[in-house]
């Protein structure tokens, strides 16, 4: 049996590509394995996508190469594991033309409303993704969702509950290899945000919260914002808030190496997001795994990912209340220390070794 992962793109650093690498590693170890958890008769594994950087080209097959190598229309015993998060017409048509069994790996689709103003083309792709998802859900033999939140979206499309399994995405194993100990008393009042600068991440709300903190509660607090954006106008607007609102102490970091990001985590008192839509939220696990208390709002998949390991603020809290909450936690090292421990315990749930077992079990139940 041949199992191929399919996606829009495959790049060096993003959550879906990292998930694909984790799956590839697990499947590669399964080929020829007598392990009862491994898919039986797995003989080949590929990554199929048409958008890839030159340095990663040797690692993938394009859809044309796959057609040529495997043949048309494909063997019904083989499996295509499709990572879905946005629309892609040509890839969708290719997928529905193939005869292999289809399994969805659902990472969620950001609601297009967040992109209509600043990136209408992206909004269209997201809407396309929703339409494609409906068709793919009907054609697939099952799905693996990143979170319960994602699972509920798939079952609402009519997928039978027993055909949708929840398995967290694979994360970088280095995250779990140990990090600097979190000693709350020794950490300065430094807030950290990690994530892309997109409208649904609500970075402007985080900056408003921060503005209230430094103006009224503690002027020594700083905020590091780590993340890039593919929507230039939005990124520029967000960055300009620093001057427009005259808030000191905000530093934007575009491209950071892993070592540089680790340094920021090692100095941070708390990691904070005001995001209102996440299908999983990898930075939440990254923060918890490093023992840095993580605060989010009670929205989308966030409470499910954070579980008992982080601070989930009620979604109805306003700017001033959120500022008070963050400042209250910064001022209470004992409480932050307790959250650090809770976070590390929760993060173990997402250790790649465990994810590997969960993934194989889920896949085995679907195919």
């Amino acid at each position, binding site marked *: 049996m041949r199992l191929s992962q399919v996606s829009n793109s495959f790049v060096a650093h993003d959550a879906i590509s990292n998930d694909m690498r984790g799956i590839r590693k697990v499947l590669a170890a399964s080929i020829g394995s007598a392990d009862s958890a491994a898919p039986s008769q797995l003989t080949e594994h590929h990554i199929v996508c048409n958008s890839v950087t030159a340095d990663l080209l040797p690692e993938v097959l394009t859809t044309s190469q796959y057609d040529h190598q495997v043949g048309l229309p494909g063997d019904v015993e083989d499996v295509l594991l499709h990572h879905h998060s946005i629309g892609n017409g040509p890839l969708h048509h290719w997928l529905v033309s193939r005869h292999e069994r289809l399994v969805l790996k659902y990472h969620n689709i950001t609601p297009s409303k967040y992109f209509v*103003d600043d990136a209408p083309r992206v909004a269209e792709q997201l809407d396309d993704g929703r339409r494609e998802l409906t068709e793919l859900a009907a054609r697939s033999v099952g799905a693996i969702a990143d979170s319960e939140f994602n699972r509920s979206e798939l079952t609402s499309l009519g997928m039978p509950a027993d055909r949708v399994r929840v398995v967290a995405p694979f994360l970088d194993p280095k995250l779990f290899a140990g990090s600097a100990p979190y000693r709350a008393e020794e950490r300065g009042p430094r807030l950290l945000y990690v994530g892309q600068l997109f*409208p649904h991440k*609500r970075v*402007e*709300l985080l900056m*408003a919260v921060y*503005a*209230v903190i430094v*103006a*009224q509660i503690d002027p020594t607090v700083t905020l590091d914002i780590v993340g890039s954006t593919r929507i230039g106008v939005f990124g520029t*607007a967000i960055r300009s808030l620093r001057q*427009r*609102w*005259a*808030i000191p102490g905000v530093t934007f970091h575009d491209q950071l190496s892993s070592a540089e990001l680790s340094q920021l985590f090692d100095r941070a008192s708390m990691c904070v997001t005001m995001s*209102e839509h996440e299908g999983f939220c990898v930075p939440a696990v990254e923060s918890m795994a490093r023992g840095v208390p993580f605060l989010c709002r009670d929205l989308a998949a966030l409470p499910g990912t954070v579980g*008992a390991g982080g*601070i989930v*603020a*009620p979604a109805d*809290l*306003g*700017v*001033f*209340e959120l500022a*008070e*909450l963050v400042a*209250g*936690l910064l001022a*209470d090292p004992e*409480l932050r220390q*307790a*959250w650090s421990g*809770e976070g590390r*315990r929760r993060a173990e749930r997402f250790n790649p070794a465990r994810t590997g077992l969960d993934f194989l079990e889920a896949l085995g139940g679907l195919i």
Partner: protein
Amino acid sequence: MVSSKKACSRCAALGLSKMTEEHPRVRTDQLVDEIRERVSGRLAIGEYSEQVAEALLSEPGYLRRIQPARDELIAEFSSTVAAVRQALEFRPYGRSTASRIPGVSLARRALRKLTSTDIEQVYAQIDTPLRRLLEAVQLLQQQIDAVETPLVAATVQRHTDLDHALAELRRAEMLLRSAAERTADAGTSEVLMSEVDTE
């Protein structure tokens, strides 16, 4: 001490049915409860600096671009205004601050004249824009009447709703001007138009 919260999975594994008071989640929830009480029970606009409030509410055109933030800030500000109103024992028909805002008094005078003219005739021409104008002024009046202190009145001038209301005034003026050109009673309408400041 045991809280009223159901035990998390880890506490349950220790044989506990409820979280202890020392559990970080219980302590954080208590912090949230205290904050809710503290923030809702005071004049937030007074206790937080004018600088911050104005920074958050300034540049309405800019905030409009970031729609969710604007909605949230307006919601936050609206609750603040409500708190101010309650605390000052709001006098619904006290001296209005409307006259301090450029354009509003002129708009009101224009409206008074408008109601003294043959309004039915004007309505026939400008029903929709006039209603918009009236609604806009009414909204403006509600916003202004909701505050009495100069501090809040100054901030209200920056309120996006006010900005919206003034935009409606401008739009209404254009439509009125257009209608005035068509109406038989051009003289009356010309007088009206000349007194509507579109600031």
